[in-house]
């Protein structure tokens, strides 16, 4: 069990700056996820923790000890790779046993001819086999121990890779997109399994993914990265409910957050498509801001829209997407300087509207996020003065 502390880690590959001075403190036993679009530096970061890459500057400490001078296997970390990285010519048993044979047997005890002669090897091998069997039992791999990786399914290979990581009982588990090669159903299953494994082992997990669902569902905390920087670090609900920037808001949540262009009128009052909102911002926010509204924060306005202070806009329904338990309605904002809008509704509401209809969409100003021209979150002033005046009607 160990903490992981990264301080001002920077890394460039040639002229490309991959990490620009990242600080990150991971608590003992925490499940921390690094999430971000591909190329954001999250994989490089985990590889620096593992010691597979060397940072240009900054330092890594595991369990309070600096590990910059240590080679990968001396850092007491284990890694699970996206491609599983099993040794193709070895059986499952040999794959799982390998980290132990490397750490417990001396060089001459591993050499092909000498090993039969070396004393103590048999006992050590017996202990190793017992440990392998224990791990295999935990992961339900007993039946597969004598197979080669090529004879296993994706999910089984995944479990073997986990077993190879677990058998060393490392302080820190590093996982580089471990679920990306699995099919959707298995991925959902393995999410639960990984979360349970984390709970059972109590070790520190650092998990890299580009899938925000994995980040949201498994982690204690999520670090959202982009262009070699951490944009926001917080619990999944903090990232969802209070995104620090436009990029975080766009990345977290599915379907993605709806972005609407708002203008700042006199006194800092926001206007959406010419209609005033019950939101105002400090004058230094500039002339134009972006309003972020989650798909579930939108509602169809029934009856006549436009009561005092009501936040609404009209849009044309382009497509209904049936997810079974709910519908996603996709709207287009004809003639307006904004991309489409999506909205999460119950099947009953979806049944009540028809495609190509022009509908009024209302939202609660308290539930929307405001971002300035640089994409940074700003807290609007005077919220609540008129927000309660519109209660979106939902069937």
């Amino acid at each position: 069990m160990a903490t992981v502390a990264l301080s001002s880690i920077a890394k460039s590959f040639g002229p490309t700056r991959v990490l620009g001075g990242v600080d990150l403190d991971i608590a003992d036993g925490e499940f921390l996820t690094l999430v971000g679009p591909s190329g954001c530096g999250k994989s490089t970061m985990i590889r620096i923790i593992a010691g597979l890459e060397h940072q240009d500057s900054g330092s890594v400490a595991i369990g309070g000890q600096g590990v910059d001078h240590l080679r990968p296997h001396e850092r007491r970390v284990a890694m699970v790779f996206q491609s599983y990285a099993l040794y193709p010519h070895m059986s499952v048993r040999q794959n799982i046993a390998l980290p132990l044979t490397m750490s417990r047997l001396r060089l001459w005890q591993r050499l092909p001819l000498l090993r039969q002669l070396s004393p103590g090897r048999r006992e050590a091998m017996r202990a190793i086999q017992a440990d392998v069997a224990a791990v295999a039992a935990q992961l339900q791999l007993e039946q597969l121990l004598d197979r080669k990786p090529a004879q296993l399914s994706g999910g089984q290979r995944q479990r073997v890779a986990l077993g190879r990581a677990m058998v060393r009982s490392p302080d820190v588990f590093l996982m580089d997109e471990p679920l990306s090669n699995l099919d959707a159903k298995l991925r959902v299953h393995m999410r639960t399994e990984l979360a349970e494994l984390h709970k059972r082992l109590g070790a520190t997990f650092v998990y890299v993914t580009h899938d925000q669902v994995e980040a949201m569902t498994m982690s204690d905390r999520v670090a959202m990265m982009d262009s070699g920087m951490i944009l926001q670090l917080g619990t999944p609900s903090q990232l969802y409910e209070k995104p620090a920037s436009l990029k975080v808001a766009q990345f977290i949540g599915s379907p993605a957050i709806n972005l609407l262009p708002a203008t700042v009128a006199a006194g800092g009052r926001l206007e959406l498509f010419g209609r005033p909102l019950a939101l105002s911002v400090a004058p230094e926010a500039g002339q134009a801001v972006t309003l972020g509204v989650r798909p579930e924060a939108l509602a169809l306005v029934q009856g006549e829209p436009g009561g005092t202070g009501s936040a609404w806009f009209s849009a044309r329904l382009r497509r209904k997407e049936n997810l079974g338990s709910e519908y996603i309605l996709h709207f287009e904002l004809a003639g307006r300087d904004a991309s489409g809008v999506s909205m999460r509704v119950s099947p009953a509401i979806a049944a009540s509207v028809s495609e190509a209809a022009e509908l009024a969409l209302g939202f609660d100003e308290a539930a929307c996020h405001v971002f300035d021209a640089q994409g940074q979150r700003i807290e609007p002033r005077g919220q609540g003065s008129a927000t309660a005046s519109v209660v979106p009607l939902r069937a």
Partner: protein
Amino acid sequence: MSGAPLPAQAVTPAHSVLRRFVSMALVHGVLVAGAIFMLAPFVWMLVTSIKPPAEIFSGEIALWPKRFYGVENYSLAMEKAPLLRFALNGVIICVGILAVQLLVAIPCAYALAKLRFPGRNLLFVLILLGLCIPVQVPAMPLYIALAHLGVLNTYFSMMVPFFLSVFAIFLFRQFFRSFPDDIINAARLDGMSEFEIVWRIVTPSAWPAIAAFSVFSAVAHWNDLYWPLIVISDAKLAPPPLGMMFFADAESGSNYGALTAAATILTAPLVIAFLIARRRFIDGITMTGVK
């Protein structure tokens, strides 16, 4: 009205079967012609080795002798020439060269394919340049050096110029490049040294390439006449082609029946070895070529 003509039923089942047959026949015809061209000398060697001298020099072409003379030819060849000695020399040289080539080339290729160090690309360019130098170019300096060391007329002198095979380094480097980095990184995390990674992780996956290279190497050095001719004068050390030359000069003169019998005996091990390793060989060639 039915003015629009229906599309003619151009491709009937019978038609397409015929077309398939014709194209298959064409392809196979070309391949068979090539195979005959390649195999004819071997067949001729085999046929000659079982013919009596009178038939060898008769004007007609016959694929089977009128009088079977194989026993006489083969026993004469075995009796007069130390064929087993030549074959043993060939085996010693081929195995020795191949072993050192693999020992050297595999780590080199791994370093060039997977390790990052300054000058790596320059080294690789030098290796490519090395591929362009024929063995005849350094023959003279090598001979002088070996003569000064006093090791002419030894197995070592026959093997030493071929210990470092740039072709092997090139071939294995291409093969190793497609080996997943993640597996190497996993091995590093599991505590393996780079040497152990090379021999325990990467090499076992490279069997197709190793088999392919082994065939190239063994064929080249089993059949090599040029270099042994330069450094060997003792018939006891002669590899098969040089032995054949000594035999042809000294014993048989113009006894082509015995000569071809000897040649058959000396070619057989290679052909058999290739037939056994054929699948691996083809895999190795295709796998290093693509990807």
